[in-house]
Structure formats: structure tokens, C-alpha cells
């Protein structure tokens, strides 16, 4: 009974061949097809062929089953309506499709969690970038203001210009530092609160 076997064909296109096929590159560079779309199309054809082969195989098996059934009836043996082997193959098919469903659910969940973390990562990079920029700005502003304060302290009228040079320098430095830290702290506080508010808003959107 091998003559009616579904696969008994020579030199037919196979899915494996589709996956391995290569095309010569065009001689003049850019006149050929782009490789990616060709590859994508071949992958599609490959999947379709595998599907067709499997469909054909199960049809073939069904034909065999029915044939056995008819032959069984003709020979007076009508016990083979739905054999034990058929039942097993059916059970295998049911379990297989259940497994496929489970695989899909897991893959979906994984893809979803992947997207979530990817978004979180992008969002975090953005926040970090902004924070960095803001910190740079703060430092610059605090520096400028503090320098101005130091100059003012240096030129303070109440201090004798020559005799108390050291004290004036110290006062200048103190003014610089005080202003720097004041400005920096104030801005940082505002900025931190702002970031916290953003995160809270973001969290409440998530839940």
C-alpha cells in the first residue's frame, strides 16, 4: 500500500530547501531584491508548507483509517469503527492543541512583561537624563550666584582693605559656600518633590 503514500514524491520542493536556498547577488550592486524581505517571504512560505504537509499527513491518516474501516466491514469485522490507535492519536491531538494554547499564553505574558520593563527602562533613562541636566544647571547657577556673593563680601565696606586680608578672604569663601549650598538645596528640594510627584502620578496611572 505504499503507492498511495502522501510523501512518495521525488524532487519536490521541501521546507528545508526553502530555508537553505541562496540567491546570487546582482553584479552591479543595488539592482537586486533586498535580502530581508526575500528572507521574510521565504520564512512565510516555509511555515505555510509545513502546515500544508501536516494537513496533508493527517488527511492521509484519516483516509487510511476510513479505508481500514470499510475493509473491516466488508470482511464482516465491523468492530473497527474507531480503533484504539485512533483514540490515542485523537487524544494526542487534543493534548497538543491544549499545549499550544498554554505556550501562547505564556509567550503573551512574557511579551507583555517584556514591554513593561522596556518602557520602565526607557522612562527611567529619561528621568535620569533630565535629572543630570537639571543638576548641571543647578551647579552652574549656584556657582555663579556664589561667586557674586563672594565678590560682594570681598568688597564689604566695613572691612579695612589692607590689614584684614585674611579675614576678608575667609568671609568671601564663607559667603560663597553659604550661597552655593542655599541655592543648591532649595532647587534640589523643589526638583526632588517634582520628581516624586511625577512618580506618584505615574504609579497611580499604573494601578
Amino acid at each position, binding site marked *: 500500500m*505504499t503507492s498511495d503514500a502522501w510523501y512518495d514524491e521525488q524532487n519536490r520542493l521541501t521546507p528545508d530547501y526553502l530555508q537553505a536556498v541562496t540567491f546570487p547577488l546582482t553584479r552591479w550592486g543595488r539592482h537586486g531584491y533586498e535580502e530581508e524581505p526575500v528572507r521574510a517571504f521565504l520564512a512565510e512560505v516555509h511555515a505555510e508548507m509545513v502546515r500544508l504537509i501536516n494537513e496533508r499527513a493527517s488527511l492521509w491518516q484519516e483516509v487510511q483509517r476510513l479505508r481500514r474501516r470499510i475493509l473491516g466491514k466488508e470482511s464482516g469485522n465491523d468492530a473497527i469503527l474507531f480503533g484504539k490507535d485512533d483514540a490515542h492519536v485523537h*487524544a494526542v491531538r487534543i*493534548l497538543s492543541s491544549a499545549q499550544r494554547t498554554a*505556550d501562547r499564553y505564556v509567550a503573551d505574558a512574557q511579551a507583555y512583561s*517584556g514591554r513593561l520593563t522596556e518602557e520602565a*527602562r526607557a522612562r527611567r533613562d529619561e528621568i535620569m537624563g533630565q535629572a543630570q541636566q537639571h543638576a548641571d544647571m543647578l551647579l552652574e547657577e549656584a556657582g555663579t550666584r556664589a561667586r557674586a556673593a563672594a565678590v560682594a563680601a570681598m568688597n564689604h565696606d566695613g572691612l579695612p582693605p589692607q590689614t584684614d586680608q585674611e579675614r576678608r578672604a575667609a568671609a568671601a569663601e564663607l559667603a560663597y559656600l553659604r550661597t552655593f549650598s542655599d541655592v543648591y538645596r532649595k532647587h534640589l528640594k523643589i526638583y526632588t518633590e517634582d520628581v516624586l510627584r511625577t512618580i506618584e502620578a505615574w504609579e497611580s496611572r499604573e494601578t
Partner: protein
Amino acid sequence: MDVARLKTSFARIAMHGDEVALHFYSDLFLKYPETRPMFPVSMQAQRAHLVDALANIVSSVDSVEALSEFLRDLGRGHRKFGTLADHYDAVGGSLLATFAHFSGAAWDAELEADWKGAYELIASVMIAAAQEDEQLRPAYWTGVIVAQERSAFDVTVLTVRTEPRLEYLPGQSVAIESPARPRLWRYYSMANAPRADGSVDFHVRLIDGGAVSMALTDGTAVGTELRLGPPAGVLRLDTASGREILMIAQSTGLAPLKAMLEQVAGLRQPPGVHLFFGARSADGLYDLPGLEKMAAGHQWLTVVPVVSAGRFSGLRGPLTDVVSRYGDWSGHDAYLAGPTEMVRDCAGRLAAAGLPAGRIHVEDFGWSEP
């Protein structure tokens, strides 16, 4: 046994693609329901592994030497899944039933005998290797997480204490299973040379959508019991070479190289080591302070951090380029770890610059991945 006939038969069966493995596992689980809990919920990756392994066995059936090493690895690797000698008969039965199913009328007594003979041979090699291994070490180690520290936004360092003590060489890795994701094993390298107290560090990078890395970074607390497979991998320090060392690590590829660095530190006369540690952005250099501290204490060690994007005060650019520009490495021993692509590029570039292939050491999980 007719090898050519087996190959032709397998090529026909393989035309059915994923359906073959799907049928095989369904057949196995229906006939032997007790085997189902040995596998993860999603069988997608598992099926691909089965098809790959079968294809590899069939295609290398002519070179007995290589095949037997592959099968011995496979046999030993299956111990941690709880595979027993009895399971091999069940698998053999379902495999033959599956092959018969997809062979249609081409399945005859002769072909069946060939496949049966081939499977028995395969199973006997795997079982023998597993039994030999049983005399030497446990199927898996139980490891309790004793410390868990997030050292970067997406990198967590786990410290694990195992029972019994895990004996390994710096550079090696183990497959880890978290109770939060049963039956999913992923390889992680030990990030320290063996310690007196037997504890080991693992650097876990959170991979977007990565089931196991997520379970290990977020879903696992101190006190959680993990399962660890046997130490595996080919990356080791060549302590006898006397040559200076070039180490290139990208991201958590640092782990095995850090273990080897600690090994170098224990040598009587440590050779000079240049460690290039690369990350996408500066905050990805998660262990840099520790490395710099180590370099400050050891004259032979130079640590060069490299960042490929964003602001950074040190060297910038793709790791491979920076290393190539930095100097002539043709007289060194090189050790590389990190994403496959970076490792491959770097190894290729070093070889092209005159470093003999035998002195470029990289990790190759290849077929050992479950």
C-alpha cells in the same frame, strides 16, 4: 543499522517541523503522566531543544567520538531534571511511536528496528554517563540566598550558600532554577573564586521579559532556596602560560572574569592583567568601585572602564574598538565574556590582529543549555 536509511527517514520526519516534537511530548505525557511535572508550563523552548538535539545526533551519527561526548554531556545534564534510567524507556517508546506516526507507510519492521537500535545506543551512553556522574557528585545543589544587593538599576548580586559545598573552578557556571519559575533553568557564572565559607556570588541582570532573571531579581528574597546544577563550562584560567592577561567583559559578563581575577590574585607571581569592563551607559558599570579598589591594592591589575553611550569621563566607544585601539595584545592570553555578539566580534578582531586562536578563551554553552 543502516545510517543512510536513518538519515533519509529523519529528513522526512523533520519536514513536519514543530508538530513532531509536539506529538512526541503529548504521546509521552498521555502514556506516562508522571513525566509532565518534569517540564515547564510552556514547552515551546523545550520542543526546539529536542528538535535541535535530534538533528545534531542524526547529523553527527558518523563521527562517533564527537557524538558520544555530546551524549555523555546530555546524560549528565539531565540528572538535575530528575531523569532516571526508567524514563529512557518511556521516552524511547514515545519517540518511536512519533517517528512511526510521521513516517506513514514508510514505517516498516526494518526501519523500526534501525530506530530502536539507534535509540538504545543513545540511551545507553547517556545512562552510563549519568550513573558514572552519580558516583562523583549530587544531581543538584540546594543553595540558600544569604544576601541580595541591587548594584545597578538592572543588576542584582546574589550571594548563595550551597549544601553540599559547590566545588568549581573560576570561570565556570551553573544552571539555576528558582522556585518561582519551576523547571526553568538558566546559566549563571560564579563571580568569585572559591571562598572558605563556600558561598558564591551571582550577577543577575534583569532581562526585559526574562522569566528567570525577573524571578531572581524581584521575586526572590533572602532565605529563598534555589537549585543549582553541576558546574559547567570551558572558560578557565591558564595558570601555566606565564603570559600577561587581557580580560574583556561586557555587562554581567564580568562575573566569570571577576572570579578569575580573584584566582590571579591568589597566584604566587600574578601576571599583569588588563581588564576592560564595558557597559552601555556609565551606571551599567555596576561593580566598578569594587574593581577599582582591587586595582588600587594590586599593582599587576589595570581596570579600564568603557562606556558606549551617554556621558562618561573615561574611554568611550564600542568595547571592541576601544580594546583594539588601546594596544597590541598579540602576546597576551585573552579571556572574553558577555553578549554573544560582542564576544564573537572581539575574538575575531583579536585573532585578526595576530593573537593565536588557542589563546582566546571564551565561554561556549553550546549544547549544554537545557
